[in-house]
C-alpha cells in the first residue's frame, strides 16, 4: 500500500521543465528519502504533493484514491523556507496554525500542551517568537508541523539549524512517529541521516527520478566488491597471493594488521578461502558504498542541460 503515489508528473514554469514524467511511490509507514542536488525539482514535487501548486500533467493518489484537496488536512509539511509570525506568542501561534489544519480549539490546546511538555518547553507559551533562539524556533516549528497528527509528514531539510543534541531528538521523534504508523518523506542533503533513517529513497536529478528503491537494496546493488580485512601473518605473502588473483590491496599504514581489498570479480567466499590459505583472519567485512558515493556517482552520470 502506498500512502502517496505520484504518477508521471509534468511541471513547467515558462520554458523551464521542472518535473519531467516524475513517478514516486511512497509506501505506507516508511521513512522515505527524497534526494537530489539543488534545483533538481524536489521542492516543486513537495509543493505539488501539498497541493500548493498543481501539476501540468500527471496524477496524484493518496491512500489509493485520487488526491483531493481535503487530504491536505492529513499532511504535515515543514518547508525548507520556514518561519513564524515573529510578534505572535508561541502558544497562540501553535493554536492558530493547528486551527487552519482543521483542529478544534480544545484539541489544539490539549495537543499543544502535550507536545510542549514532550519537548520541555512548557514555559514558552506566552513568549513571543522573536524572543526564542533559532533552535527553539525550529522545535516550535516541528511541533506545529505534527500537531494535527498527520498520517503523512513531509519534512524539507528538517535538521538544518539544530545542534547535534537537538538533531538527535528530532531523529528520535521522527522514528517514534514512524513506529506509530506515520509515513515520513524526508528531503535532505545530509546523506548520513538518509542511511541512518530512510527505508526507501528516490534520487531526483534534472527533473527526473534517476534512482529509487529500498536503501539497503540500492547499496547492495552498488557494491563494488570491497572488503575490510583484519589478519595476523605475513602481509607480503598475502599481497603476492592476492596479486596473482587480480585483487588490489590497500594497506593501512597506521594499523599493520588491516587491509582494504578490492575484488570486483570474486565472490566473498572464494576470496576468503584464498586469504585463509596464507594468513589467519581476525575480521572480514564487506564494505557497502555510502549513499554519499551513490549520490555523487549518479548525479555526475546524468548529463547537464
Amino acid at each position, binding site marked *: 500500500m502506498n500512502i502517496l503515489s505520484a504518477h508521471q508528473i509534468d511541471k513547467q514554469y515558462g520554458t523551464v521543465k521542472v518535473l519531467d514524467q516524475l513517478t514516486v511511490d511512497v509506501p505506507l509507514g516508511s521513512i522515505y528519502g527524497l534526494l537530489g542536488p539543488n534545483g533538481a525539482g524536489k521542492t516543486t514535487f513537495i509543493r505539488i504533493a501539498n*497541493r500548493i501548486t498543481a501539476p501540468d500533467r500527471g496524477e496524484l493518489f493518496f491512500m489509493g484514491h485520487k488526491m483531493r484537496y481535503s487530504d491536505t488536512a492529513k499532511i504535515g509539511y515543514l518547508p525548507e523556507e520556514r518561519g513564524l509570525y515573529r510578534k505572535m506568542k508561541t502558544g497562540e501561534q501553535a493554536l492558530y496554525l493547528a486551527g487552519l489544519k482543521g483542529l478544534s480549539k480544545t484539541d489544539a490546546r490539549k495537543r499543544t500542551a502535550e507536545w510542549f511538555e514532550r519537548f520541555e518547553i512548557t514555559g514558552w507559551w506566552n513568549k513571543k517568537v522573536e524572543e526564542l533562539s533559532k533552535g527553539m524556533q525550529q522545535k516550535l516549528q516541528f511541533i506545529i508541523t505534527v500537531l494535527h497528527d498527520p498520517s503523512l509528514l513531509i519534512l524539507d531539510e528538517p535538521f538544518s539549524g539544530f545542534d547535534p543534541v537537538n538533531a538527535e531528538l528530532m531523529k528520535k521523534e521522527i522514528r517514534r512517529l514512524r513506529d506509530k504508523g506515520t509515513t515520513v518523506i524526508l528531503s535532505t542533503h545530509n546523506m548520513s541521516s538518509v542511511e541512518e533513517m530512510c527505508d526507501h529513497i528516490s534520487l531526483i536529478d534534472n527533473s527526473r527520478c534517476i534512482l529509487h528503491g529500498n536503501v539497503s537494496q540500492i547499496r547492495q546493488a552498488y557494491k563494488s566488491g570491497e572488503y575490510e580485512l583484519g589478519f595476523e601473518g605475513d602481509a607480503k605473502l598475502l599481497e603476492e597471493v592476492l596479486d596473482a588473483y587480480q585483487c588490489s590491496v590497500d594497506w593501512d599504514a597506521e594499523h599493520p594488521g588491516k587491509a582494504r581489498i578490492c575484488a570486483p570479480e570474486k565472490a566473498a567466499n572464494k576470496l576468503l578461502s584464498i586469504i585463509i590459505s596464507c594468513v589467519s583472519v581476525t575480521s572480514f567485512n564487506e564494505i557497502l558504498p555510502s549513499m554519499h558515493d551513490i549520490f555523487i556517482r549518479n548525479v555526475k552520470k546524468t548529463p547537464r542541460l
Partner: protein
Amino acid sequence: MNKILIILHREYLVRIRKKSFIVMTLLGPLLFAGIMLVPMLFAGMNDHEVKQIAVIDSSQFFIQKIPETEQFKFTYAMNVKLEDFKKNLARTEFFGILYIPPYIAYTPSGAEFFSYRQPPVSLTMHMANAIEKNIETEKLKAHQIENLDEILKSVRTHIDIRTFKLSEEGAEKENHNGLNMFVACASAFLVYFFVFMFGAQVMRGVIEEKTGRIVEIIISSVKPFQLMMGKVIGIALVGLTQFVVWITLTLALVAAGQMLFMSNLAEKALQQGTTAGPLPAQTMIDGGGEIFSMLASINFPVLIGSFLFFFIGGYLLYGSLFAAIGSAVDSETDSQQFMMPVSLPLIVAMMVMLNAMQNPDGSLAFWFSIIPFTSPIVMMARIPFGVPYWELILSAGLLIGTFIGVIRLSAKIYHTGILIYGKKPTWKELWKWMRYKNN
C-alpha cells in the same frame, strides 16, 4: 469559508491589539474634535471683543451715519486734531481712529485708519462700505430725484439665490450647494484615505508573511485565495472599526465641547446684560435649525448605502491589487514600481472629484464615476447632488464585475509570487504568473 474566518479573526485581532492602532484610534478623535472646536472657540472670543472706533470726520458728512454692529462701535470726535489724537490713542480706550478727509468724494483713497493692532478685514470692509454707500446716496440726491429714499430702499435689496433642483417627476428640491460640496468632498476623501491607508496595510501584511517565511506553512493548510481574502477582509474590518470609533468619539467630543462652550457664551452674554440682538446661543440654535433643514435635503438612505458600497467595493478592488503587489516583492522598497500604476487611478480620481463637485452632472464626472477604478471616489462626490438610479446601478455593477476579475488575477499573481524569493519580478513575469496553472 471557515478557514477564511480563522485568518480574518487573527488579522483583525493582531492589528486591533497593536499599540499604534490604539493610540491612533484614541488620538484621532481628539485631533478632529480639536480641528472643529478651536475655530469655534476663537470665533466665540472674537464675538465679544467690542472695538471702539473714534471717527474724525473733516467732511462733517458722515456723523452718525456709519452703522454700528455688535463688534464695532463708532464715536464721533469733534474739534479734535488728528495729530493730537494719534499721540494720545494709547491712553484712550479706542481701538483705532478713522480719519475722513474733507473732500472724500473726490479723493476716494483719502480715508485713513490708524491703530496699534492690525484691524480685522471685516472692520475695514464695514467702514469702506458705509462710506461708499453714503457717498453714493448723496451723489444720487444731487440729481434731485423725487421720492429718492423710497426708490433707494426698493433698489437696495440683498439678494440670496436659493437653488432648486427639478426632478423628472416634477418635484422641486431645494439645494444647498455648500453642504452638498462638503458632504461630497468628505465622503470622497474618506474613500480615498481608506483605500490608501488600509491597502498599504494589506501590502505590508503580505510582505511580512513572505519575508517571515511563514506563508508556505499557511498555504499548505489553506488555499492562497483564502489567505488573501482573509487578510483583505480582516484589515477592512480593522479600518471600519477605526472609523466607527473615530466618528462616535469625535461626535461625542464635539458635542461635549459645544455644550461647554455654549453655556459659557450664554453666561457671558447674560453677564454683559446685552439687550440688543439675540443671545449668541440662540443664534447658534437657529443656525443649527437651518443646518437640519439643509441636511434633510440630502437623500440619506442612498448616501449612506452607496457610501458603504463604494467604500467597501473600492477598498476590496484596490486591496486585492495591493496584496498582489506585496506578494510579488521582497520588501516594501521594491514595491515602488508596481505602486505607481495602482495609485495613479486613485490620484486621477481625486483630481476629477474636485471638478465633479463643481459640476456633478458634467460628462467628465459622469464617465469617471462609471469607470470602476475611479468610480468609488468620483461617484461619492456626485451622490450628494443626486444621481439617477440607473447610473448608480451601472457603476455598482461594473465595480462588482471588475472586482471579481481583478481579484482573480491578483490571486494568480499572489499564488505564484508568495513562493518566489530573492528576485524583483518584471511586468512581463507578472503577466506569465497570471497564466500559470495553480490549481
